[in-house]
Structure formats: structure tokens, C-alpha cells
């Protein structure tokens, strides 16, 4: 193409004018009176793209504009909400941010005013209550959850003379002590294999089973309580028994999972997708059994309506449709989103056998687990306080730090972090 300088100037001027015009139009579209347009923010894999596309086609009375927001989703949402311009009408909230955003009751619509209280019973109640404020407002509807289970290598279990069918494993290793005893047997039979992949994972799950966390609903620090100490001791015990692997991450962990060094791990339902992606060659060798000590949850997001929402009634209709059992089943197939509505667990998309797990119908493990998770109050500062314990536990695990001094340091550091965040 032959482009003279004059042409270039003219084109750029035109482009600037057009861009300016678009911005001006955009501002007009942001006015609260316009109820013919709704925006939906989610992140890649946060909802099934196909279900979202169906919603756009179905709710054609309005122009529903979905946007997949990359990068730090919470940061972009908070920044936009602070700017009070171009705030999405409907937005996803990641599970790790619900505790802090739940405090912002004047930034989100109480969905109970739109009829959410009538459908509450359809969803798993412990997840539903994570988005309920202290004064009973409902700020979000749960998209997905991460019920936990024991992923294990059937071939190695069989080789070690351990029970190897999911039902037998679940029954034989129903407590942490039984699981650890199996780990010792494995160690004797297959010396280079490890039963416990993550020491802090044990800590996390024992806490998850306790129904309490680091800070109670009265904003008091309970990180030095018995439930935390018990979880700490259980985690350290796996190290002392010699059944915990050295700390591995990323490709190293993948390599160890493939070569049979790491033979079991406790993970959420969504972890299955990671396992399939990172170790496709081990297809058929893995199985899923009930978690020792009872199920816990890891993660799971919400859909919420911001106070800027231009048509709350219709937006609520859209999110309840997006999260209907049928669409949740599609979300499970497309994006490994484990349904929050147990009615979906009976649908074929979930009951089908999974070849990666040797044809096992894993919903038989995850379904009951999802309904049995213990609810716990999570304060906004919880994850920061919790991290202090994990850090010290990792010091014991990877640096051989003395377990008692590590515990003392963890409690001191956790108290300090809690104090910084205004916890008494």
C-alpha cells in the first residue's frame, strides 16, 4: 500500500475522531436509565462460554454483553467499582474474595429482595451461606464448589497390597490415622513411593473438617485454638512417620506423579482437570475415593449484582438461569465447574464414567462429599492469618525447623497479622 504522509495524518485524525466519538457514546450508554443493556463480567473458565452464549441468545430483549476479564479479576473489579463508571451489572466473584467483598454490603444488591430466599434450598447450604452477610443479606449465588476427595494411583496401591477399589479405599482409610498407617505399609512395600504429597494440605483439610477457622464471627482471633493445634499435629505426624514426600512444585511434582513417587493426593473436584492436563500418560491408573476424616471444600465462585445494575429483576433472572441444574451440568462438562445445585448430580453429564479414572463414576464420591461439607465462618483476614501457619509448617517440612518453635512462631506471626487487620 502506498501511504503518503498526508494520507497518514488524515487517517490518524479520522481514527482519533472516531475513537473520541466511541468514548462519548460509551458514556451515554453508562447512564442508569438505559435498561436495554446488561454487562456480565467473568474470568476465563469462570462460567461455561457456551452457556453464556446461550444466555445472550435467550435473553434477547436486552443486549447482554459478556466480557471475559483477564489478569487480576478482583483488582479490576474493585478499581472499576471505585471509579463508579462502567461497573458491570452482573459480575463473578472468586471464592477467595467473597469474604472481603461480603463486607461491602452497599456495593452489591441483596438478592433476597429479588427472590433469592425462595431458591436458597436448591443449593448446598454451606456454600450459599458464604455469601450471606451477618444481617442476613444475600450478596451472591454460588457458581461452583470444590468438594475434596482422595486421588490415588490404583496400580501402586495394588502393588503395595493395599485396598485398591474406590469403595474399599474409602472404607479402609476413613480416618487420618488409617490413611497414615496405609502410608507406612506403602513405604515398606514400595520404598521410593510417598503417600502424602503435601504436608500443609493435611493441615488445610483437618482445619476444613473442624468447622472453625482462624477468626470467629465475633472478630476474635482463634488461630491458637485446639482445632488448629490438632490440624498442625496431624500434619507434622505425617512427616515424622516418613510417609510425606519432600516438597515438590510445578513440573517436579508432575514428574513425581507420573513416575509413581507421589501416589495419592487430597484435592478438590476441579483438581481432576489439572491432573488430566499434566499427566495424560497416567490415564486409567488414577481413582477417586472419599477423603480421610470427612469431606472439605476448596474454592468456588459466585455471581453477584452490583448496586449499579440497570435492571436487577432481569439480571437476577439471567443468573438463576445461568445456574440452573441443566446449565450447571453443561458448566461441569465445558469448564470443570462442579455444580452447587445437587439436582445436577443426577444428570448424565455428571454420572458418566471417566476414562481417566478407569471408567469410575466420580460423582459417587464427589456428590455425597459436596452435601456433607462442614460450614465455617470465614473472616476477610482469614487467608492472611492462615498463611502464617502454612509458612511455618513448610519450614518444618522443607527446612527441618523444630516443630514446637515453628508452632510458637506461627501463632505469634498470625496474631500480629490479625492485629494489623483490626482483629481483636
Amino acid at each position, binding site marked *: 500500500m502506498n501511504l503518503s504522509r498526508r494520507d497518514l495524518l488524515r487517517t490518524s485524525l479520522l481514527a482519533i475522531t472516531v475513537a473520541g466519538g466511541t468514548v462519548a457514546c460509551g458514556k451515554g450508554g453508562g447512564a442508569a436509565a438505559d435498561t436495554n443493556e446488561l454487562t456480565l463480567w467473568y474470568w476465563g473458565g469462570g462460567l461455561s462460554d457456551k452457556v453464556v452464549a446461550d444466555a445472550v441468545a435467550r435473553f434477547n430483549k436486552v443486549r447482554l454483553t459478556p466480557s471475559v476479564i483477564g489478569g487480576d479479576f478482583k483488582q479490576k473489579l474493585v478499581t472499576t467499582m471505585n471509579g463508579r463508571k462502567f461497573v458491570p451489572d452482573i459480575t463473578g466473584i472468586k471464592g477467595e474474595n467473597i469474604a472481603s467483598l461480603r*463486607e461491602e454490603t452497599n456495593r452489591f444488591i441483596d438478592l433476597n429482595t429479588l427472590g433469592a430466599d425462595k431458591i436458597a434450598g436448591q443449593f448446598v447450604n454451606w456454600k450459599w451461606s458464604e455469601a450471606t452477610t451477618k444481617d442476613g443479606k444475600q450478596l451472591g449465588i454460588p457458581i461452583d464448589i470444590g468438594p475434596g476427595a482422595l486421588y490415588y494411583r490404583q496400580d501402586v496401591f495394588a502393588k503395595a497390597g493395599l485396598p485398591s477399589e474406590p469403595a474399599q479405599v474409602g472404607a479402609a482409610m476413613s480416618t487420618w490415622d488409617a490413611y497414615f498407617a496405609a502410608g507406612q505399609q506403602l513405604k515398606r512395600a514400595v520404598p521410593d513411593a510417598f503417600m502424602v504429597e503435601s504436608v500443609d494440605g493435611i493441615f488445610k483439610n483437618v482445619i476444613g473438617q473442624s468447622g472453625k477457622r482462624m477468626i470467629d464471627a465475633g472478630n476474635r482471633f482463634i488461630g491458637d485454638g485446639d482445632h488448629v493445634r490438632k490440624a498442625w499435629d496431624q500434619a507434622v505426624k505425617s512427616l515424622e512417620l516418613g510417609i510425606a514426600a*519432600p516438597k515438590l512444585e510445578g513440573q517436579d511434582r508432575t514428574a513425581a506423579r507420573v513416575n509413581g513417587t507421589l501416589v495419592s493426593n487430597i484435592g478438590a473436584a476441579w483438581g481432576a482437570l489439572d491432573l488430566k492436563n499434566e499427566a495424560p500418560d497416567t490415564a486409567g491408573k488414577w481413582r477417586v475415593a472419599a477423603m480421610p476424616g470427612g469431606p472439605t471444600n476448596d*474454592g468456588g465462585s459466585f455471581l453477584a449484582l452490583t448496586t449499579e445494575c440497570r435492571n436487577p429483576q432481569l439480571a437476577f433472572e439471567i443468573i438463576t438461569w445461568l445456574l440452573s441444574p441443566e446449565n450447571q451440568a453443561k458448566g461441569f462438562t465445558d469448564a470443570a465447574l462442579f455444580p452447587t445445585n445437587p439436582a445436577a448430580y443426577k444428570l448424565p453429564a455428571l454420572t458418566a464414567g471417566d476414562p481417566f479414572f478407569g471408567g469410575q463414576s466420580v460423582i459417587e464420591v464427589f456428590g455425597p462429599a459436596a452435601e456433607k461439607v462442614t460450614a465455617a465462618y470465614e473472616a476477610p483476614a482469614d*487467608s492472611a492469618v492462615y498463611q502464617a501457619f502454612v*509458612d511455618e509448617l*513448610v519450614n518444618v517440612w*522443607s527446612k527441618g525447623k523444630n516443630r514446637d518453635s515453628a508452632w510458637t512462631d506461627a501463632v505469634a506471626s498470625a496474631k500480629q497479622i490479625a492485629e*494489623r*487487620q483490626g482483629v481483636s
Partner: protein
Amino acid sequence: MVATVTRSTAAPPARQQGVLRRFWPQYLAISPFFILFVVFMLIPIVFSLYLAFQRWDGLGDTEFVGLQNFAFLIEDAKFWLALRNTVLIWFMSTVPTLFLALVVANLLNSAVRFSSFYRIAFFVPSVTSIVAVAIFFSSVFSTQAGLVNAILTGLGAAPVPWLINEWTIKLVISLVICWQWVGYNAIIYLAGLQAIPSELYEAAKIDGAGPVQTFFRITVPQLRPIILFTVVISTINGMQTFTEPQVLFSSNSANAANLGGPGSAGLTAILYFYNQAFNNNQYGYGAAIAWAVFLIILVFTIINWRIVARRDRPAKVRR
């Protein structure tokens, strides 16, 4: 200079207006930088100073807490660990980087063939995305699947847990920085080398100086202002090391925020600031960390300046 020129030509009362009217195209031409600077740098800097005295979760109301954030900072063992790591990594990366850069610059200066090719080749790392570089290094130094350990085991040595051990973590981060910035500093040194008059070298040759003597007696002293510049720039950058540990130890797990790998051995001050503000929603505390780091960089820069610049002064007096 502008003021003196106008004073001699325009009448005093109309001076201010006259300047604007006469030089508006120039002011307009430089304005984009200043407008962007005010919007994206100055306002955030002032706001962060304000935040350092508040407690703020990023969305709700700010609450004035006085110097409490700084009081917490002094007690916070993690913060001191992060500072220690930052200084260690800065030292472990800057010293070899600048030394190698000087060597490379000398080689480039004397290279006869393909010199442009070498210059570009050495400069390319510094314009490569740090994220890509860090991902590449994390693969190379992976314990079980990494290239370095594959070579080590091939030679019969035991594999090293590069990204797990406290010191090798710092070593790998330093290596990333070193790899990336040797070329950049070498190009700066090269410019300095080419400004040294060749008469000096000729005189040294006639007086019988060898290449090592020439390097230490002529090249290094002549390059002193350039070396000062690179040391100051490396200090400012080194104190703000962030992306390398952020990518090397990024975790997919949503709940486990990145705190610089096992034992927080790769936790730098800026990574800790990021963690506190953006992962823990403690924007006020984060701002306090950022300002503490600023003060430390300031002190470091002044010390650097004094050390390198003071030696120049007596020399001038003697002359």
C-alpha cells in the same frame, strides 16, 4: 536561561504571559510526558503517601491510623526478611552483572568482525519480557525435569533442588537478573569506552603498560562516572526486584498467595508489598512498605553516590 532572554526583550509586567505565548508550541510538544506523569505517577505517589497513614481494604472507607502501619512494619519479621532477601539478591546480581558487563564491553570494543551482531545479541535479553525469561529459567532449574539437573546427573552429580533451597533460590533469581542486564550495562560501558581518547592508550603503550594495567589504570578510572551511573541504576532496579520471584514462585492455587517460594527465600520487599496490598487487601500497610522501601533506596543511592563521587573531588583539586 529562558528568564534572562525574556527579561532583555520583553517588558517586565507582561513577562509571564509572553513566555507562554511565545513558547506554546514547545510547551505543547513536551506536555504529553508531563500530563502522563501527573496522571500515572504523581497522583498515585501522593495518594500512596496518604494511604500509608490509613487502613483501607481497597473498596470501603479509609480509616486514619496515624503511624500504626509503620509501627507494625518495625515488628514485622516478614518485612525484615524481605529486606534482607532484597539486599542479598541485589548484591548477588549487581556485582557479577557489572563486572561481566565491563568485560563484555571491552570485548565488544575490540571485536573486529560481526561487532553489530554481537552488540544486538547482548542487548536482546534486556528487551525480552521478564515474565518469559522467568518462565524459561523456572523450567531450566526445575529439580526433576530441568535442563541443569539433567546435565548434572549426566555428569554423575546429584541433582540440586534449585528452587527449594534457600540459597539456590536467591542464586537463580540473581542469575535471571544477571542474564538480563549484562548486555544493557555493556552497551552503556561501550559508549563510555568509545569516548576515552585513544591517545591515553597509545601513551600507556609507549610507557610499557600491559593490557591488565591499561584496563585498571586507564579504562576503569576513565569510566568512573559511567560506573557510578550503572551502580545507581542497578541499585534502584535491584531494590525493586519483583517480577522474577513473582513468576518463579507463582502458584495456581488461589488461596496460597505467592510469598517467594519455600521459606519465603525469594520474597523481595516489593513482592511483599504487592502481597499485602493486592492479595491481603491491606492497601494502607502496603503503601507503608512501599514508602519504607523508597527511603531505603534513597539512603543506598546517597551512599553509592558518596563512595564513587568523593574520590573524584580530591583529584580535581590536585589538578
